[in-house]
């Protein structure tokens, strides 16, 4: 644990430079005095003894600097000096300082804004169990702008894909009209975005529900059997004020009733 003591003494030098200097000064002073005394004993007169000792000692401030350099803080001290100088200069010319700061603030702000946008859209991994293991399957036919598989083809692929742990289908349904009945019997109609997904969706992604349950493979076995929906956390918060009684309510999506069975976790925004 010797290094802890070493770090502590280094920090002591950094935070109490005055004490460090004083101690070194005192040490060198006593060294000098002892030298003078010895010179006196060899028969020099006082003036000569002092002079000889001082000459022997050399450049004391330089020596102090060299001793301090050893503690490795000189560069940091110079940095502090530079910062202090910069602050003094800024105080003297407030106009220039304001313009420079505004320029920097705008520049940094614009960059940050653009980056956060790109980060959300392009860079951030999907908030799922194993984003690196996801594969998007599409047809090699480039003439279609959106790759679509028929349901029977999807079923074949799903049941026979040996290389992957699972397969799910999804399609965005943007601009659908959603009618929901809020608490107290009020109904609201709004245009929303959503995704129609197969029952394996949450299983394969490894996303579990914040509340209620997620969709299960059994949910899509019967055509038109019992449409169920999982709503996003944001929608739950905005539309239902996080009311836990939302489970079991119905959501009419383009006239088809879906029963809400769960709420997705806050970080999950679906797959895009």
């Amino acid at each position, binding site marked *: 644990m*010797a290094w802890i*003591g*070493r770090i502590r*003494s*280094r920090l002591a030098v950094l935070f109490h430079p005055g004490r460090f200097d004083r*101690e*070194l000064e*005192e*040490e*060198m002073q*006593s*060294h000098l*005095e*002892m*030298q003078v005394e010895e*010179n006196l004993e060899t028969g020099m007169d006082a003036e000569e003894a002092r002079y*000889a000792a001082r*000459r*022997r*000692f*050399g*450049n004391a401030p*330089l*020596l102090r600097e*060299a*001793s*301090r*350099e*050893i*503690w490795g803080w000189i560069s940091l001290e110079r940095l502090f000096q530079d910062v202090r100088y910069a602050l003094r200069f800024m105080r003297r010319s407030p106009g220039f300082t304001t313009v420079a700061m505004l320029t920097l603030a705008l520049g940094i702000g614009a960059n940050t804004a653009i980056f956060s946008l790109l980060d959300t859209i392009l860079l951030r991994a999907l908030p799922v169990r194993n984003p690196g293991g996801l594969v998007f399957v599409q047809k090699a036919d480039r003439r279609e702008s959106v790759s679509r598989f028929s349901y029977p083809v999807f079923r074949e692929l799903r049941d026979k894909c040996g290389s992957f742990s699972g397969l799910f289908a999804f399609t965005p349904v943007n601009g659908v009209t959603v009618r929901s009945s809020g608490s107290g019997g009020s109904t609201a109609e709004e245009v929303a975005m959503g995704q129609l997904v197969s029952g394996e969706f949450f299983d394969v992604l490894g996303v579990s529900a914040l509340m209620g349950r997620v969709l299960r493979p059994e949910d899509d076995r019967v055509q038109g059997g019992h449409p169920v929906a999982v709503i996003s956390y944001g929608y739950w918060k905005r539309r239902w004020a996080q009311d836990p009684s939302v489970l079991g309510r119905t959501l009419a999506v383009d006239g088809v009733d879906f029963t809400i069975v769960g709420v997705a976790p806050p970080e999950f925004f679906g797959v895009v």
Partner: protein
Amino acid sequence: MLSAGKSKTEIPPGTLEMLILKTLKRFGAMHGYGIAKSIQQTSDEVLRVEEGSLYPALQRILIKGWVTAEWVQAGSKRRMRVYHLTPAGRKQLAAEISEYRRVSQAIERVIEPA
């Protein structure tokens, strides 16, 4: 301060720390002035310790934990910083001495007439 007739040699670079450690081992705790004098006297006035290298060297070995320093009162008005050898310093000294021997024997073999 050259003493009459005798030339004094600067201590070869890298060996000063070894000499300081050895001096502390031989004579026990000492202040900087004492270390310098002692090296000078033990070497029959051949080696001269410059204050300009002594104090930086002391700081260096202090950081490395080979010595510790403490202030002791000397007389009525003077305080002196006294250095003690630590176990780590002892180990370092042994290592440096054997390394020095190895190198100087090698140099000896090179310059010795065959």
